[in-house]
């Protein structure tokens, strides 16, 4: 592998660039599809010890990756890890758009690597980690603040009129129409793409972010929930719903069709002029019979 260093300047950070070998592989041996090659320019980050001044902690490495019809960005990254550079670090699990682990920024837009066809990205692809979350290594970022913000909006059913702890074995009534009021928002994978695409998160670390706000709306819109006023109090803040300026990028990048921009505007409307409606809302009642599959304690 011939390494060639070029100095770059990006976002105030000095970066180096390494070009890795263009050896072809047998990736498409089993597919029989027409094969071509793409240039994958991958962001690298090493959390070096403080006394190590041997190399900069950020750089871009370029890899030549053979692709065929159906090759996803995740396939390409796995190819790099298995054949070219085993030190490349990234997260993935299910490989089919369910777990939300493999979110990356490809050519300046957030995508799930497993759902993204490499051929849709062109011949030169720049892969960066998700924005607005601290780097751990290469494409891996720290989701801790993201998860903490999700927890802040009480992402669970709140019922003050029923004891739902312990041996609770009853269900709440809900019509299909009531279900459709929040079903779309319940599809959230917590992949972090919206959080990375959001321009408010780019400069405001305290902002709850589109995911947490959409999650708050998901429970407020749920007919079984009784904690809507507590949540409105949480989101009716400067660093919550009111920091959103409706750029819509969160909804644009969501791989599951969740619409956080819609949810946040609804939260603002609820906070502004519909709190009376929420105060009058009665959470849905329990069904008459206990679930047979659950044994009461």
């Amino acid at each position, binding site marked *: 592998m011939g390494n060639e260093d070029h100095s770059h300047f990006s976002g105030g950070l000095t970066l180096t660039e390494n070009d890795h070998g263009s050896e072809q592989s047998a990736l498409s041996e089993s597919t029989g599809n027409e094969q071509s090659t793409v240039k994958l320019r991958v962001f690298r980050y090493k959390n070096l010890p403080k006394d190590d001044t041997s190399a900069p902690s950020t750089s871009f490495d370029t890899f030549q990756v053979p692709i065929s019809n159906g090759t996803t960005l995740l396939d390409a990254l796995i190819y790099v890890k298995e054949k070219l550079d085993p030190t490349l670090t990234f997260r993935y699990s299910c490989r089919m758009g369910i777990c939300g682990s493999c979110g990356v920024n490809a050519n300046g*837009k957030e995508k799930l690597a497993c759902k993204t066809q490499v051929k849709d990205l062109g011949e030169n692809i720049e892969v960066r980690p998700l*924005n607005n979350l601290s780097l751990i290594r290469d494409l891996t970022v720290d989701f801790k603040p993201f998860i903490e913000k999700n927890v802040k909006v009480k992402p669970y059913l709140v019922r003050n009129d029923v004891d739902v702890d312990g041996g609770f074995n009853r269900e709440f009534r809900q019509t299909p129409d009531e279900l459709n009021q929040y079903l779309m928002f319940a599809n959230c994978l917590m992949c972090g793409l919206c959080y990375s695409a959001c*321009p408010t998160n*780019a400069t405001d670390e305290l902002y709850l972010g589109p995911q947490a706000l959409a999650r708050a709306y998901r429970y407020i819109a749920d007919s079984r929930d009784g904690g809507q006023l507590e949540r409105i109090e949480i989101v009716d803040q400067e660093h919550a719903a009111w920091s959103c300026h409706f750029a819509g990028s969160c909804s644009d990048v969501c791989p599951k069709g969740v*619409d956080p921009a819609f949810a946040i505007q*609804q939260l603002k409307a609820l906070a*502004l002029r519909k709190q009376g409606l929420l105060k009058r809302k009665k959470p849905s009642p329990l069904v008459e019979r206990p679930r047979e599959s659950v044994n009461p304690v």
Partner: protein
Amino acid sequence: MDAAGKEVLKVLTEILERKNNAGVYRGWLKFWNRNWERWLYAMHRITGVGVGIYLVAHIWETSYSATAFLDVSNGGSPVVWTNLMSFLSNEFFHTGLLLVALASVFHALNGVRLIFAEQGLMIGKVKPPTFPMIPSSLKGGQRYFGIAIVIISFILLVYAFYQLFIIGLGW
């Protein structure tokens, strides 16, 4: 830079690297591969800053000439105002006014669009998740309103050009 300065710079750089925030450039201004609403968002910020700078300059310019006008010991004549206006009446400054007119109209109308959206209006209705799962907020009435805002802004730009250049400068 001495060794201590380099050390401080290194630590700050490392903190910035690790934090990985997109910042103003990548977060606000790098919008060309994004959705239409993100373009409007970026333009709203840029025009807001532009009109804000113009307002400060305009207040300074007016207060400067008004002070001279009201200064009786200095004659209290409108000469200062007249001189200032003749200094500003040229293609360079009128092009600036043209941009201010465009920015003001766009910023005001887009503000109305945002007020509507924040009331939950023109952003569509909630729907069950069905393929192709296009978010309702990105295809609601606000999107067409956004397109109309850009068209109206450019129509009024033509009118401002007529007033500033044809009538004002006698082109």
